[in-house]
């Protein structure tokens, strides 16, 4: 029995040590990719949040000439696959004289596409705030901008936060798509490393683990924020 166990261990141990040895070798390269992934995600998230808020405010506006074109734009962008949006910005924009680096194109593409999802999330949150709140704000003479800032948005945040966290994680994962326009973020680094070492197992396991290292803490953080806001009443 002990002999068998020993043999089993002997067979397994080198594999595990191999993995760790290779992993420490690959990690610095992959961490460079992680850094780019994080940067693209953060920049795109800022862009998507700012634009999304603009879309939501325009769409909930009482002025139809603002609301209708915004709806069309949002539906238009949402109807195109993210990959195609990225190709379009990276390959078509230069033809009309807009030259962007792969990183810029990727960030803008991600941000724009996700602004449309976020815009709809924000709009749903804004519309979910009790109509009585809007009336109360109007009844003390608030105009729309002030009412949004002081009354509606602070209450909408709580409703928006769970789907917003969801969107954040989707955006982080979607950032892997910018590898197709040659941005060397985590997925791209992994692909290059795998094709030069043929060690697919170690490389892509590491890539997956590194994505989890980003998404799991993000999830936990958002849950903390949610419960904090929930407790604030």
């Amino acid at each position, binding site marked *: 029995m002990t002999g068998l166990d020993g043999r089993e261990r002997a067979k397994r141990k080198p594999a595990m040590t191999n993995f760790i040895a290779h992993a420490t070798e690959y990690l610095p390269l992959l961490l460079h990719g992680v850094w780019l992934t994080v940067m693209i995600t953060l920049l795109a998230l800022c862009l998507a949040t700012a634009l999304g808020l603009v879309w939501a405010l325009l769409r909930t506006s009482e002025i139809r000439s603002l609301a209708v074109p915004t709806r069309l734009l949002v539906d238009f962008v949402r109807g195109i696959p993210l990959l195609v949006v990225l190709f379009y910005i990276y390959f078509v924009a230069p033809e009309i004289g807009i030259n962007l680096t792969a990183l810029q194109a990727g960030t803008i593409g991600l941000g724009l596409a996700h602004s449309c999802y976020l815009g709809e999330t924000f709009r749903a949150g804004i519309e979910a705030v009790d109509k009585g709140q809007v009336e109360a704000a109007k*009844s003390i*003479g608030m105009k729309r901008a002030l009412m949004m800032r*002081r009354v509606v948005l602070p209450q909408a945040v709580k409703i928006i936060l769970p789907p917003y966290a969801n969107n954040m994680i989707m955006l982080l994962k979607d950032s892997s798509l910018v590898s197709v326009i040659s941005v060397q973020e985590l997925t791209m680094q992994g692909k290059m490393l795998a094709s030069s070492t043929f060690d697919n197992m170690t490389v892509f396991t590491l890539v997956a683990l590194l994505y989890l290292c980003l998404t799991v803490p993000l999830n936990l953080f958002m849950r903390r924020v949610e419960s904090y806001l929930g407790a604030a009443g």
Partner: protein
Amino acid sequence: MITFDDVHKSFGAHEVLKGINAEIAKGQVVCLIGPSGSGKSTLLRCVNGLETYQRGRISIDGTVVDAASPQVHAICTRVSMVFQRFNLFPHRTALENVMEGPLYVLKENRNQVRDRAMALLNRVGLADKTNAYPASLSGGQQQRVAIARALAMRPQAILFDEPTSALDPETVGEVLQVMRALADENMTMLVVTHEIQFAREVSDSVLFLDGGRIVEQGPAKELLRHPKHERTRDFLHRVMHPV
């Protein structure tokens, strides 16, 4: 002070106000009574521009109220409203609720606004609840905060939209008491209510609405004791003797 001149209002094909004529003088307390769907609340909401009307004219001290015009916000700073469901801002304390209008709409000095808001909460008997959030207050307390919030705008008139309908019977009294005190201080008040006793004791005149028309109007005591119109008599009988 508030004048209704042949006011018509429809929701789609359904006409809810069919030519309202009335005049509310400064310092008067006027109660609007009538069955559900008679147009009382709609009429009230037209006064501060929460609803638009299609025909006729509502004016406050000569200024026409037009919900579609940009000046409608200015009207709201002169005429405050108290709602059936209180509509306090849940993310702000009682004090902050009262301070919100003067601070951000009238842009008054923060310290002065705070002092005045404290005084107003004291006046409605809630000096000890300044830092409480609406969720921790009873219905009656919330409605008193809402009245303080309305008063904070230094309005020329206050509109009350069934202010006691959503309250526990036990807390109705404390809200009516605050309203009575306001009436005693000659605040102009337009009150949609089912509290017939309050209407009789506190208001100067009563408008009875049914089916979008004013069926009868007159001094409160007279109209409520000796209604002339059959429909008014029927309504009052049902309200005062429900069983």
